[in-house]
């Protein structure tokens, strides 16, 4: 098979701004950078193909966090996300998002992406969150990627598909200098010098193993193997609150959203096996997931999304959305099982763990300008630490990153990296191709992710974590000494396993550091079952120092929008109480 044959090669190119990851945040970052300075060179590097990559590969049903004048205010949204995230939020970035996102909606509208309007011509925003109203359906949501791609072509962004970035390059004084990448079909290496780099590489979604046992049946796009988290870590950037795992309520086995954000506003709800509601609100928070988990184990499970009480026309409307965008094979899956929403509820389960600030708060630490702690390095979207970001957050913060990165590039020259770093990286990347005999990447990956499930999945038990870290260290040794890749495609998987292993280590390290329980199920430590605001009302930042993984506390920035004492625990009251 000529396509995957390993070709020996190394070339070098340069650009002003390098955007890595062409899913959601990446295209917007590249576009904004280019529009900021049309004379500059902007390269968009993508492991798959920008036309169909990332979480919105098949589009999206709507915006989950639209702050639209007349329906919600930036203050209200900032307050809601602060409470939903248990107070550990630097509000400045969330507030800036809330102020800017309406402009981005108008811009997306000008790209040809439509948003649902009512008979008066106003946006038809729906309520899903606990307090405010932020969900806006997208009637032609399946066309999002196509619309973005048109803009990229028009702006003459240089797109390089099928290149996987493996490590960032820095100068001696710590500034970003570019990235090393490898062609996923030939294994040829490409060094890209850049004045500024924006990481938009998505969630770490291939961390836990789905209960189906199918390695690629993940909630997140299975291409999102956490490469951005690993690269940021090795470049010395700080990563925030990684112990705040992503865990989502999903269609059992299919492992995609059911999806309460679509069906909820029509009257659907989450129910137990008795047909009773048990949670106040279907918005995905750690507190809600804890109640979901408790219900599953209580004997009152399974848990279902209940639709059958709705009018058949309403069900058809919901169905047409669920089976057309985001995960269109949901229809095929239900058909295969003979499940008709009109007569049967949708069985749900809990997803594998991952990192994703898009739904929780685990991401590369960024400020309100999308800057990481490494000068010239930016991050946006699911992998950057602005919490509960979703798609609109990726677009909005991608836009912020693109503009700021181009300003940085315009005022700096190329930083010089050490050529020895490239040689070392080439040796690391190619090592699995040099062995005659060994263990294939799929086995190392399966074992690593099985260990993640066995030892790291909440509830988090200190002793289990210690054992898990020992087992992971053994698997890492196998990965470093014995992993074999016989063609370029296997090399791609071999490199992804290394990201997954790094993320597993970071998940364990960050979880042991925070000695309290917070964010409901996301960080439930049985040895420290209570929330401890006195000692742990802070971010945790994980980073690589002198080759070692370290964690430290970082104070939460003073709030821009104050939260009253009686509002702080609104998301803690998720369980429906029996009333007389």
């Amino acid at each position: 098979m000529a396509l995957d044959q390993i070709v020996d090669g190394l070339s070098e190119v340069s650009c002003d701004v390098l955007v890595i990851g062409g899913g959601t945040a990446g295209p917007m970052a590249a576009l904004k950078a280019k529009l900021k300075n049309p004379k500059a060179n902007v390269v968009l590097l993508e492991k798959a193909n920008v036309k169909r990559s990332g979480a919105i590969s098949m589009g999206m049903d709507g915006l989950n966090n639209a702050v639209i004048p007349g329906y919600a205010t930036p203050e209200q949204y900032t307050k809601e996300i602060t409470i939903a995230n248990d107070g550990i939020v630097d509000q400045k970035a969330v507030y800036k998002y809330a102020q800017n996102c309406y402009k981005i909606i108008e811009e997306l509208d000008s790209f040809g992406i439509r948003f649902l309007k009512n008979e008066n011509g106003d946006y038809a925003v729906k309520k899903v969150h606990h307090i405010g109203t932020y969900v806006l359906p997208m009637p032609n949501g399946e066309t999002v990627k196509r619309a973005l791609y048109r803009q990229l072509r028009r702006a003459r962004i240089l797109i390089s598909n099928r290149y996987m970035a493996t490590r960032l390059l820095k100068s001696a004084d710590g500034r970003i200098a570019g990235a090393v990448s490898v062609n996923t079909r030939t294994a040829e290496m490409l060094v890209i010098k850049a004045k500024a780099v924006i990481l938009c590489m998505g969630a770490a979604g291939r961390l836990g193993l789905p209960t189906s046992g199918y390695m690629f049946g993940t909630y997140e796009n299975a291409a999102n193997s956490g490469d951005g988290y690993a690269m940021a870590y090795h470049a010395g950037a700080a990563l925030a609150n990684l112990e705040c795992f992503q865990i989502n309520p999903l269609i059992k086995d299919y492992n995609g959203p059911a999806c309460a954000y679509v069906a909820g506003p029509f009257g659907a709800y989450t129910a137990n096996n008795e047909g009773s509601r048990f949670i106040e609100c279907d918005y995905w928070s750690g507190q809600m997931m804890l109640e979901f988990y408790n219900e599953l184990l209580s004997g009152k499970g399974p848990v279902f999304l209940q639709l059958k009480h709705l009018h058949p026309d309403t069900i058809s409307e919901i169905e047409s959305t669920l089976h057309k965008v985001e995960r269109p094979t949901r229809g095929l899956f239900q058909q295969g099982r003979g499940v008709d929403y009109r007569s049967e509820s949708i069985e749900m389960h809990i997803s594998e763990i991952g990192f994703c600030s898009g739904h929780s708060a685990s991401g590369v630490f960024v400020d309100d300008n999308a800057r990481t702690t490494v000068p010239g390095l930016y991050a946006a979207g699911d992998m950057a630490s602005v919490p509960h970001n979703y798609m609109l957050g990726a677009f909005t913060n991608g836009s912020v990153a693109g503009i700021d990165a181009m300003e940085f590039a315009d005022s700096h020259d190329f930083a010089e990296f050490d050529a020895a770093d490239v040689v070392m990286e080439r040796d690391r990347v190619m090592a699995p191709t040099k062995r005659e005999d060994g263990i294939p990447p799929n086995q190392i990956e399966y074992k690593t992710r099985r260990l993640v499930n066995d030892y790291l999945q909440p509830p988090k038990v200190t002793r289990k974590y210690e054992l898990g870290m020992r087992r992971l260290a053994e698997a890492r040794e196998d990965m470093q000494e014995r992993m074999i890749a016989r063609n370029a495609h296997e090399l791609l998987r071999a490199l992804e396993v290394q990201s997954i292993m790094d993320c597993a280590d970071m998940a364990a390290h960050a979880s042991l550091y925070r000695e309290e329980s917070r964010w409901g199920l996301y960080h439930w430590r049985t040895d420290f079952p209570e929330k401890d605001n006195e000692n742990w009302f802070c971010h945790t930042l994980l980073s690589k120092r002198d080759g070692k993984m370290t964690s430290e506390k970082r104070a939460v920035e003073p709030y821009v929008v104050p939260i009253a004492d009686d509002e702080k625990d609104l998301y803690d009251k998720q369980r429906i109480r029996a009333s007389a």
Partner: protein
Amino acid sequence: MPLASYQTSVPVVVDDAKCIADKGCTVCVDVCPLDVLRISDMTNKAYMAYDECWYCMPCEADCPTGAVTVNIPYLLR
């Protein structure tokens, strides 16, 4: 340790009669996020070379002749 290959039933099926990969089309191979489709050296038609599927649909949706069908992977069906 020596390697063995084991059998797996793959979710993406290509109808050779409709597939025009032999005329130069590579759309499904190009768009796949997991890069699991290839053109066969023997038949010059597209096929699923690696069982690493997110059952996401771009290959089926973008195929110009309707030759590609995505099924749910057996393990989670």
